[in-house]
């Protein structure tokens, strides 16, 4: 199903919000995020997961828009 024009920008902004808060007000970072998982700091895993989530969303948008090519014409 093709996402509406506003859906994707809103999802992207919502996804970015926690990262903005953690970097703008570091005290809001949850304690568990500062622990290590498999020898790698939690913040590193979290940041990688954030990035991968954004990439997966982009792939989904690319597929959805190509499947419905032309329907988003304003």
């Amino acid at each position, binding site marked *: 199903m093709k*996402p509406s*024009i506003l*859906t*994707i*920008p809103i999802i*992207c902004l919502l*996804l*970015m919000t926690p*990262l*903005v*808060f*953690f*970097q*703008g*007000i*570091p005290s809001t*970072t949850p304690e568990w995020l*500062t622990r*290590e998982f*498999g*020898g*790698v*700091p939690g*913040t*590193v895993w979290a*940041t*990688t997961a*954030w*990035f*991968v989530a*954004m*990439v997966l*969303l*982009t*792939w989904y*948008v*690319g*597929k959805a*828009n*190509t499947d419905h*090519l*032309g329907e*988003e*014409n*304003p």
Partner: protein
Amino acid sequence: MIQSSIVYFFITIAITLGITYWAARRSSSKEALYTASSGISGNQNGLAIAGDYMSAGTILGIVGLYFLVGTDVSLYFISPMAGLCIGLAIIVGPLRRFGRFTLGDVVESRLKDRRMRVVLGICAIVISLIYLVAQMVGAGGLISIVFGLSFNMSVVVVGILMTIYVAYGGMLAATWVQIIKAVFLVGSVIVLSVLCLQHTGGLSELYAMTTEATAQTRSLFNYGNLNLGLYSAASLTLGLMLGMMAMPHLLIRFFTVPDEAAARRSLVVAVTLISLTMCLVFLIISPAGVSMIANNPDYQDANGVVLGGSNMITLHLARALGGELFFGIMSAIAFSTILAVVSGLTISISSASAHDLVKTLSRGELSEKTELRVFRTAAALTSAAAIGLSILFQHENLTFLIVMGSSVAASTTFPLLAMAIYWRGLTPTGAIVGGMVGLISSVGLIILSPAFWVKVVGFDEAVFPSDYPALISVPLAFISAWMVSRVTSPAPAELAAS
């Protein structure tokens, strides 16, 4: 100068000039010079976009910045990725459908007013020039270190080469240089990552080494090292996010493919390559650089500073793990990266100058031959201006220059494109006012910011407390375009009908 670097330096120049000669024989028309006659496939364009995105500043700069701020560097690559995602959803399709050569085509086709070309042309030139100066400053520093030339000589060499590529090879040459460079860049990042893991014994061992390297690196894995505050963090994110999908030199790449489906496919290919590369750079190469290079006395000067600055960490790492041969290859890739990106930016400025400004101001009475002459002259003038400005701003912070270009793009081309495509109520006057308000407010706030007002001009205190204007300038551009559109007339009916 390192012997292997000299050899690869000349091999790189020979290959790129060979591509330009090949492309020049196929680039006699306006279509060929501006958009490679829209004959690039989606996959090829995806590689070229990935190449445009992954500039020397991105690859070398991210590792260098990681050394200073650690995990906080994530804002600089996650925000643009979000921008690419939004761009794929709302901009790319309509852009390819309504545009032919420049962004001015897109907005003029919606608003039926030729003045829009001038506005978009000015915005494209300002944004691309800021970005071009940032790339040239980075290029000058890198080349002077790797190849032993002076800064001024380095930027002159880059300026001359980019003029030749653009004036003769046009978009076809720039695209193929980008494609080849992107393949080598991704390949070398994969090889370097494997070498890092091989050397350390695994990811957890790598992070243990990084954590133990110095007391300073212990804080690298906490958020907040950028000391931004909530406003600046949000504004930086917004500027990088919206600016990414409003960069003229990236957007005109979508005119090089035959149709909308190829345009979308090309961005998906680009995102795949960018994500693979950036994950490796963030997860492996950056911490390896900190643990093996940044605190290693072999790579520090007498003051304990990394030789050539933190941007050189990646190249030092290549030498430490792969020897002189791999160092030479990585240096050549960094050099070709610079050449490819500045060529793309020069095309953006030259096509906006010839097709949007000069052609419109001469009321469209410009033969193709004359327009091509204007394009080539603009390429030479752009090169001269970029050389002069990069010498002037050679001590300016690179990240600040890049964020500045992104913030201006987010405040000008993004509101104009988004509103022109999706809001039928936008009038030509509203669009002009919105674009100008975005341009003046973003540039004005940057001038009044600490990074310019205090560090460049020399005042004690900045008028505007943050270096990042997007959170104010982007809404201002949208609101002013909306308000003026509500009280002004749309384009004449007969023009709209046409």
